[in-house]
């Protein structure tokens, strides 16, 4: 379980998160939505320890992420797969090298045959076979996202975090990525956290939705509850227009 308690974070004295409280239950997909620049990615980076809070705590299982440093933090991160917004594949490595990077750099060496098996298995999971030897520059945006998912899965994580998984993709590819996220969650039962402002994607993949606005969680619930919510800010966000009194 991921538990965020009263998390605050500022950049250059500008508050981004102002007391975020959130619980992410195991085995389901929680989607954090909110307008651009509201701090969704900042929140995600706190979960994996890439940013440290000004105050508050982030727990992953029984570990307080903000209190971990060095080897302990790296050990915890091996249980968390992250799929970054731009995929963040290493340009100089092939698809296969990217997928096995985390395993190859572990103290305990994995045999080459095992690495090859993992590459094939994970690429099959994301339905992208035959690209093992291609460089990231030879792939489309959607393919890069799939490789990034395969790389995250290669570490056999208990949690997987998606940062804007469908941003920058055409609607058809975006829906395919949504289907893939749902499929992986159903088959592998990995606890999933996604941050996005794509509502179509949110309705498709979310078991639980949390909305972040002005540095706080302003809504937690299901997609149906979100649609029925009468809060002006939520109304504006989910309909993309100003509040109408008649509604």
């Amino acid at each position: 379980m991921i538990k965020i308690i009263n998390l605050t974070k500022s950049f250059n004295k500008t508050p981004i998160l102002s007391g975020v409280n959130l619980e992410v239950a195991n085995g389901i997909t929680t989607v954090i939505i909110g307008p651009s620049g509201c701090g969704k990615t900042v929140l995600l980076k706190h979960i994996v320890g890439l940013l440290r809070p000004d105050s508050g705590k982030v727990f992953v299982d029984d570990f307080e992420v903000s209190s971990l440093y060095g080897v302990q933090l790296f050990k915890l991160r091996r249980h968390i797969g992250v799929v970054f917004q731009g995929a963040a594949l290493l340009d100089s490595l092939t698809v296969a090298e990217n997928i096995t990077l985390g395993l190859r750099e572990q103290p305990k060496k994995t045999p080459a045959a095992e690495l090859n098996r993992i590459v094939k298995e994970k690429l099959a999971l994301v339905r992208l076979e035959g690209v093992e030897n291609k460089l990231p520059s030879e792939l489309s945006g959607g393919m890069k996202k799939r490789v990034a998912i395969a790389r995250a899965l290669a570490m056999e994580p208990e949690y997987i975090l998606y940062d804007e998984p469908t941003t920058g993709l055409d609607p058809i590819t975006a829906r395919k990525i949504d289907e893939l996220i749902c499929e992986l969650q159903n088959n592998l039962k990995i606890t999933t956290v996604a941050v996005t402002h794509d509502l179509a994607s949110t309705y498709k993949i979310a078991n639980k939705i949390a909305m972040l606005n002005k540095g706080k969680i302003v809504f937690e619930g299901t997609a149906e509850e979100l649609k029925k919510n009468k809060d002006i800010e939520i109304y504006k966000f989910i309909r993309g227009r100003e509040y109408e009194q008649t509604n």
Partner: protein
Amino acid sequence: MKNTLEYIGNVTLFIKDVVFTLPKTHKSIHLIIEQVYFVGIGSLLIVIVTTFFCGAVTAYQAAFQGKDYLPDVYIGMAVIKGFMIELGPLLTAIIVSGRCGSAIAAEIGAMRITEQIDALETLGIEPVRYLVLPRIVGSAIALPLLTIVSELSACIGGGFCAVLLMNIKLTTYIEGLRFHFMQHELFGGLVKALVFGILMGLMSTYYGFKTTGGSEGVSKSTTQSVVSILILIIIFDFILARILF
């Protein structure tokens, strides 16, 4: 003043991270070999061509300036002394910094802004061990080797100029080289090259790591890295000259 102190503090913390990662160097051998290849083999041609002509210019100027009152044997001396003590390590470091220092800063800067460094961290890989250490160690190995090549190339360039353009006997030129060759000067020059290599690797990775703000940020950190490397090389050249010779 505050910015300067902040800069010194940040560089010091970065050096501390690098030093603490040094015991893990053996885990990055394959990456170090890649960097030695990139810095060393990749810069070979440009270093040979540049220092060949610099050697030729040195021989030409020595012959021209000393015409009528210096014996021809001193042309070899001018080339070997100039390059072993000063020009060999300095020119090599300047050429390699322009070629590789900028490339390293730009590569790591681009990795920073595209979250590739964050991705490394989430895969349980220490970015300093994976990206910084191999580049520093690789540069520290490659620079002295390139310096030896540059000194040889300069001597050959000087010989070509002396024999073909100044009508000096090859044996006289070689005698000048041999007579003024001092082992400790060669060693001193290589120590300089080693330090320049460390400086280049350190500052280029530092600026790459600190990159913010998109492609403009990459351009800025690349420029800053080359400028700071060149300034530091000149300052350390003076300090090492005082210590070593």
